[in-house]
């Protein structure tokens, strides 16, 4: 009780203690902001992969037929909620006068894709997807175009002009890609890429908020794309299967099960040899990003280390302030000791006070970090308005918005470290207080 009374008294009477609280709060707040920004970015990065590709991706080295049979097999297992085929290609898209863009083309089934990832939610048009029974064979060819292909983000605000993008819906654009044809040769028939150009109507605009996807992807109905890509083939073809796992299932076990099913399917239905099967990548979409995520985590660690080292000054500051308090409050210490308090309990008062100061500073730091992170997009917008400096651009940092979720795990670690640092800073002054002799200090002369 006496300890708490003294802590509160020193806190109230010694205004200089507020300086150490401010320093602890600033350092903790800054570290929490850095850690939260990085973990928010990493989490958004991983989530964007899930939104684009589902939970698990089966990626074959070459296109394969009978994908519907494989998808049915997958969906019969309890671990797979839905699966969707993808046929990939590259092309050049002519969007209008003088506007040509290189695009990555995905042939998709819009309906099944909407069950696997957030495709339907990314469409700007609002008309939804074509019905599951719609047959496009006799209809006009359609496609879904990334917003970054039809309009550029505003250089000042980094925001897309959605109305301008919507105006493209319903317009005819021209795509050229490579069609794979079998040609005869001296050593027998071989596949060769022939240029294939066709026009389609923009059915909708895709906006995911991920710059690379929005500015580089074009989605075509898989049957339509397949007719262009493989004009000589009758059956259905895909190159990837994107899979959404059932909630609560074990990812590793599910991947192993999918791998087993694929090996069986490829060897029995596709007649693929072991060599070709071994080149099929079956991986969770999060794990596919692991190399880059690892680098991001490393950079976060390095940055936290740098700012952590720079924040070591907090220990020196607490030391100085507490030393000053101990020197000016020697009479308090002597009276406490004269009343029978042991050296360790006197030391405990000051170490505890250090921890108490650290605790208040850490709490203020967490609060500061929380306010900054939660309002980071507003802060960034104000910096742009006041200083004309656009700090966050989706073309550089992938996402349209700055991740604004606080990382409570790191906030805890940093908060505890702040308390420990303040207690360490108070340790030597506390020892000095513990060693003072009441008889020397309380002498009349």
């Amino acid at each position, binding site marked *: 009780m006496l300890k708490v009374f003294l802590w509160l008294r020193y806190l109230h009477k010694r205004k200089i203690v507020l300086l150490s609280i401010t320093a602890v709060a600033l350092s903790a707040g800054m570290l929490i902001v850095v850690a939260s920004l990085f973990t928010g970015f990493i989490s958004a990065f991983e989530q964007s992969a899930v939104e684009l590709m589902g939970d698990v991706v089966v990626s074959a080295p070459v296109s394969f037929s009978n994908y519907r049979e494989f998808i049915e097999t997958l969906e019969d297992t309890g671990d797979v909620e839905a699966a969707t085929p993808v046929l990939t290609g590259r092309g050049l898209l002519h969007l209008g006068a003088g506007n040509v863009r290189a695009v990555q083309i995905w042939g998709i089934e819009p309906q099944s894709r909407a069950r696997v990832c957030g495709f339907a939610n990314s469409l700007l048009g609002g008309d939804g997807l074509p019905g599951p029974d719609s047959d496009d064979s006799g209809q006009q060819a359609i496609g879904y175009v990334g917003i970054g292909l039809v309009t550029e983000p505003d250089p000042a605000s980094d925001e897309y002009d959605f109305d301008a993008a919507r105006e493209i819906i319903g317009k005819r654009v021209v795509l050229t890609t490579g069609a794979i044809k079998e040609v005869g040769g001296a050593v027998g028939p071989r596949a060769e890429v022939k*240029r294939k150009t066709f026009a389609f109507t923009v059915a909708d605009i895709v906006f995911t908020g991920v710059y690379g996807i929005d500015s580089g992807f074009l989605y075509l109905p898989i049957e339509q794309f397949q007719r262009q890509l493989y004009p000589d083939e009758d059956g259905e073809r895909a190159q990837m299967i994107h899979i959404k796992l059932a909630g609560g299932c074990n990812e590793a076990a599910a991947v192993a099960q999918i791998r087993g099913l694929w090996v069986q399917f490829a060897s029995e239905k596709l007649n693929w040899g072991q060599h070709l099967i071994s080149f099929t990548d079956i991986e969770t979409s999060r794990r596919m990003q692991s190399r880059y995520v690892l680098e991001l985590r490393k950079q976060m660690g390095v940055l936290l280390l740098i700012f952590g080292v720079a924040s070591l000054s907090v220990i*020196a500051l607490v030391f100085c302030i507490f030393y000053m308090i101990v020197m000016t409050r020697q009479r308090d210490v002597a009276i406490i000791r004269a009343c029978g308090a042991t050296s360790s309990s006197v030391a405990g008062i000051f170490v505890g006070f250090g921890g108490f100061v650290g605790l208040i500073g850490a709490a203020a730091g967490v609060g500061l970090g929380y306010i900054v992170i939660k309002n980071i997009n507003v802060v960034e917008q104000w910096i742009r308005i006041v200083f004309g400096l656009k*700090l966050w651009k989706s073309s550089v940092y992938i996402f349209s918005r700055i991740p604004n979720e606080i990382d409570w795990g790191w906030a805890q670690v940093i908060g505890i470290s702040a308390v420990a640092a303040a207690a360490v800073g108070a340790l030597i002054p506390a020892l000095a207080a513990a060693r003072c002799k009441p008889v020397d200090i309380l002498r009349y002369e």
Partner: protein
Amino acid sequence: MYKLVLAFRYMFKRRISYLALAAVGLCVFVVVVVMTVMTGLVVDFRQKNHEFAGDCVVGTDSLVGFGYYEEFVEILEQSEFVEAVSPVVKGYALVSGAGSERNYGFELMGVDADRHSAVTGFGRALHYHQDDWANAFRPSYEPNLPGFVAGIDIWLERDSRSKYTHPSEPTRRRFSVSCFPLTAKGALARAGTDVVRTRTFYFSDTSHSGLAKVDGAMIYIPFEWAQQLSGMGGAVKRASAIHIKFTAGTDLSVGCAGVNDLWEKFKAGKQNEKAAALLETVRVQNWKDYRRQFIAAMEKEQVMLTIMFALAGTTTVFVVFVVFYMIVSHKSKDIGILKSVGASDGSVAGLFRLFAVMMGLSGSVVGSLAGWLFLTKINDIENWLFERFGFQLWDRTVYAIGAIPNRLEPGVLAIVCACAVLACMAGAYLPSRRAAVSAPAAVLQVNQL
């Protein structure tokens, strides 16, 4: 003189001063190391962008390009301040290898290898034709075949030491390159379905500009071929840009202003020509503005890091404040005596300001020396960490970064040291004011002694 003596005395006799010195030194050390590395990366990146673009670019973002460029090239070549000029064609191409089912979309740049090497670092970025860049598009295995140069990251993988392993000779491989030919109005040059132009090229060389977004996405072909594939080779030939190198000693802004004047006159002279509308989209930019969107991202990161260090440095200001406050409190008798023998308020404040400057300078020297020592060994430390623990500051297979930049920039060092001195002066301001206004009669009373 007494100020200097007392400042030295406080500095070395008061052990608490060492704490402030250590705090300043630590802060300077961290900032010097981080800012040297960051500045090195930015300077290197700017240099590579300069090498890529030349000094000045007259060009348009439109893929249609602009006409009459040949006449303007002649005008530029006659100018005293222009050393070399290179017109280029830019666009997008669909590329596929023989016997492969895969297509790749790349950015396409059509250049005259000799002219472009005279303006930019194109020739120096080549591997097989580094001494013979005029023949960059002639594959050494069959010089009569049309060759192309690929960005190095398209062709080769970078190892963990940021090195590429080239075969002794370029591999004989052929690729078909397709483009949409566009008319001067931007429409497709030919109606119907077969509207692309395709031509086969053979691998000739790689280009290592050091810019990840260029080396991983750009292929280079001869200028005339790019012009034909993009539909720019009609009656009025078109180009996308003209890259310019100024003569040695020409100031960048003066040179660009000169080019701009020439361009405006040229444009005015062509206003009645058939394709004059395309000239309106053309801009004259120095290399910094031309590559602004890429350079600005790194510069902003440097600014953000600086702001964060300024925040972290606040604690150091607090430390200096507390140390000075303690010293002023403990040395009140010194101050009283000084004032009683005639020292003015300003002199007493000056004494502590001098002490603060000495503190800042000493901390800067200690921090800078430690930073310099660390920087000289930073690559060895990283190599050691990589060999023992597999740790690299940046995974070189992911990032196009070579060695960690460790050249101490005098400008950066001067700014950091000046900031350290200013921080110390800011921290010492209130305590020195308190010392200056203290009354000798109050501190030298018998009951205070």
